[in-house]
């Protein structure tokens, strides 16, 4: 066997083995050894997956577990075993996730030393699940990793054992468990239709004959993955879970887990349904609408938040909408942009959550109004936050800007461009506003953000500041890398992958209608919005008060929508499934 194929299974076996060993020895380990082991394992995985991505650029590296390769069944329509295939996009995304985990382990150094390495066990299992999810080529195996990812995330969310983290975890578990059952129903339907679980064989069986089974199976799978990816109307759990999880975990949630949902959607569309016209048409013409609504709604809601982690959570929702638009392009350029966007957004969002964690550790709060002016002594963190906010607002440097630009051109759809500009401006503006309030002490009467949910909380504070700032600044520096270093590689990777799927190219022709290019539109809007809200004075005259009340109304509505009750969320999920079925029948 080629060396690359031999090393491929280690991408999951290594973290799983490390987690099991840590649990086994948890009562006898010296302090800090778990931190060290987890960091080293995730760095090793980043290197391994990066190498696999490079080796798999032209031809995916395939490993058939237990040696049950396609020949062993003795008939062409059956594959007995499970395979991993490290094509360049999957391996690159895995490498990126492993890198984020390493940064998060450094950030959380010494944070979780009270309980015997349990945090590290959960995180390593989480990492293994994400890598397995990216690399697998078997639908049920994909589900297993999806579920392992969820279960690890559930436990990590509730980890601080505070009231709101427990309640956020409950919402998270119930919604995501329903999502995984929906995925399993989809798998059952597709298995009934195709009689196999292997991606390539499924694609072969589905090819050509559009039918209710393939469509229904796809819709159920899409519900599950869109729930993970927090696409409206399946997004409600995210703001609850991300706002209350410990910040090193939120780093992973926003930076990696959520985008894995979009990446999984991309993988199953490319892997299983490339030749199903109805599904391709739905993905190309229907999904962008979900992305657009998500981007705008997420941006608006983020604007009206004061709790920094909740603000970041809504901004994640907004940006995931843009990633979904990238998925829907189904062209090599667009998918390369999507991959780059996952990377750029993950880096920036991880760094910003680290800053929120620093604030929590120092000041026991991450509320921009409570913290007003108290961050002056922490100016490096403030600087990093401002840089992150500008990058998130699409300032024309670094990975994220290029990624957004590429996606915009690939989808060629004016509404999508408007949504992207609006959501970038709103989220970036909200972050700039928060940074100015916390670190500069700029005032301004609070607008719609005044009534947003918030809470005082505390995270363990005896870690040195430099240790927390270091991973944050490193990630930001990576996000500032010139995109030319990565984009050609990703373009080639996406082209190879799409070519291997034989997708019907005619179905995915772009419309080519973009806004007039203007690199400074979104960041300019963001700065303007932040400036306006900091100049705001308390309304005195009757007209001003009426205007303020009028301005509150829509945000009030958004607040009522995000009620925090899981029973409501379940209803929204049912309505969302109905909406998908409707849109599917229309496209």
């Amino acid at each position, binding site marked *: 066997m080629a060396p690359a194929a031999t090393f491929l299974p280690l991408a999951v076996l290594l973290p799983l083995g490390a987690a099991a060993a840590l649990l086994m020895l948890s009562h006898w380990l010296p302090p800090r050894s778990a931190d060290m082991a987890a960091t080293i394992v995730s760095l090793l995985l980043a290197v391994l997956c990066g190498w696999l991505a490079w080796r798999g650029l032209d031809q995916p590296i395939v490993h058939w577990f237990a040696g049950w390769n396609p020949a062993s069944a003795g008939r062409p329509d059956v594959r007995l075993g*499970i395979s991993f295939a490290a094509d360049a996009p999957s391996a690159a995304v895995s490498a990126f996730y492993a890198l984020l985990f390493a940064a998060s382990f450094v950030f959380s150094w010494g944070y979780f030393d009270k309980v015997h390495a349990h945090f590290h066990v959960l995180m390593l299992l989480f990492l293994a699940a994400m890598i397995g999810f990216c690399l697998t080529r078997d639908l049920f195996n994909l589900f297993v990793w999806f579920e392992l990812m969820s279960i690890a995330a559930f436990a990590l969310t509730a980890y601080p054992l505070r009231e709101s983290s427990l309640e956020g975890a409950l919402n998270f578990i119930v919604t995501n468990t329903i999502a995984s059952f929906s995925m399993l129903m989809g798998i059952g339907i597709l298995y009934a239709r195709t009689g196999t679980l292997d991606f390539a064989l499924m694609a072969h069986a589905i090819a050509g004959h559009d039918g209710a089974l393939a469509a229904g199976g796809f819709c159920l799978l899409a519900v599950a993955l869109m729930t993970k990816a927090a696409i409206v109307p399946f997004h409600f759990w995210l703001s609850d879970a991300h706002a209350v999880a410990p910040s090193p975990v939120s780093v992973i949630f926003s930076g990696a887990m959520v985008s894995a949902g979009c990446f999984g959607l991309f993988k199953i569309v490319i892997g299983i349904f490339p030749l199903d016209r109805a599904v391709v048409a739905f993905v190309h013409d229907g999904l962008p609408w979900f992305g657009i609504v998500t981007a705008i709604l997420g941006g608006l809601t983020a604007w009206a938040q004061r709790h920094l982690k909740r603000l970041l959570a809504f901004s994640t929702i907004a940006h995931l909408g843009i990633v979904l638009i990238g998925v829907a392009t189904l062209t090599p350029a667009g998918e390369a942009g999507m991959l780059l966007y996952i990377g750029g957004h993950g880096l920036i969002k991880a760094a910003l959550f680290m800053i929120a964690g620093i604030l929590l550790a120092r000041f026991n709060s991450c509320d921009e109004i409570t913290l007003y002016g108290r961050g002056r002594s922490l100016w490096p963190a403030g600087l990093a936050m401002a840089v992150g906010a500008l990058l998130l607002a699409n300032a024309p440097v670094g990975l994220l800007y290029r990624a957004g630009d590429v996606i915009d051109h690939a989808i060629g759809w004016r509404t999508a461009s408007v949504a992207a500009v609006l959501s970038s401006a709103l989220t970036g503006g909200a972050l700039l506003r928060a940074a100015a309030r916390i670190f500069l002490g700029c005032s301004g009467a609070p607008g719609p953000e005044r009534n947003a949910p918030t809470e005082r909380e505390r995270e363990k504070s005896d870690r040195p500041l430099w240790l927390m700032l270091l991973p944050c600044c490193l990630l930001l520096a990576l996000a500032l890398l010139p995109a030319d270093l990565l984009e050609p590689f990703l373009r080639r990777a996406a082209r190879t992958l799409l070519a291997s799927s034989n997708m019907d190219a005619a179905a995915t022709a772009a419309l080519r209608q973009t806004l007039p290019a203007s690199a400074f539109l979104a960041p300019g809007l963001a700065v303007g919005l932040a400036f306006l809200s900091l100049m705001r004075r308390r309304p005195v005259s009757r007209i001003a008060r009426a205007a303020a009340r009028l301005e509150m109304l829509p945000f009030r509505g958004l607040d009522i929508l995000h009620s925090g009750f899981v029973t409501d969320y379940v209803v929204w999920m049912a309505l969302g499934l109905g909406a998908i079925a409707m849109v599917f029948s229309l496209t």
Partner: protein
Amino acid sequence: MRIRFRAAALAASAAALFPAAWAVIAAMPPFGEHVSPYGAAVNAVVPAARHVSNMVAAVNFDLRGLDTLGEESMLLCAVTGTVVLLRGARGEGTSGSAVRLPGRAIAQRSDATILVCRFAATLLFFFGVYVALHGLVTPGGGFQGGVIIASGLLLLYLGEGYAHWRSIVRGRILSFLEGAGALLFVLVGAIPLALGKAAFRNILPLGTLRDLYAGGTMVVVNAAVACAVAGGFTLILLEFMEETRAPETEREPGEGG
């Protein structure tokens, strides 16, 4: 949202979904009239290739061993999670031994009860081991056997009383068992790699069909799963039992774990 409004919204989405759902149901293959090529191929190929008679076990432990590894990891996650969630709130100090709820009477058990429970628990334990051992031959396997062993250990609690039970069943041994089972599983996957073969590749002699030793590495995986499941489920049950009698402690708020 009010309950009535929610029910109405659900009814609306059900109405919207009904045609689509019916289309899918109508398009499903008729019940009980075909076996998928995958399943048929497994039934045709595997008995000769692996010398085991229980195809479900063969799929679980060999063909799709990776799924089972993921499943064991989920158990690992859930165990770690419940331990963190339940023990974390009580504080580490109380985890070693039994906690008694003040004001709750210790129920005296008659000798007959203790005897019956000990007898039944031993019986259940051996039944669990039996089910686990014969997993590759008859229905059952490491998972079912492990759960039966765990419930047998719980039966011991009925007879012995809580404090004594806790002194027999120790948390750290259970978590060692759980971790060791999972690690053994991972090693079964990784060792063939060192030999230049595919992960989880069978490297032991296959044994004979319908014999207790059949299936090569599947036997090892089966044992690993039994260990992990027995340890994991007992630990989960133990932490839950502890919860019914946790003392009121002052928790320091929000001290990240």
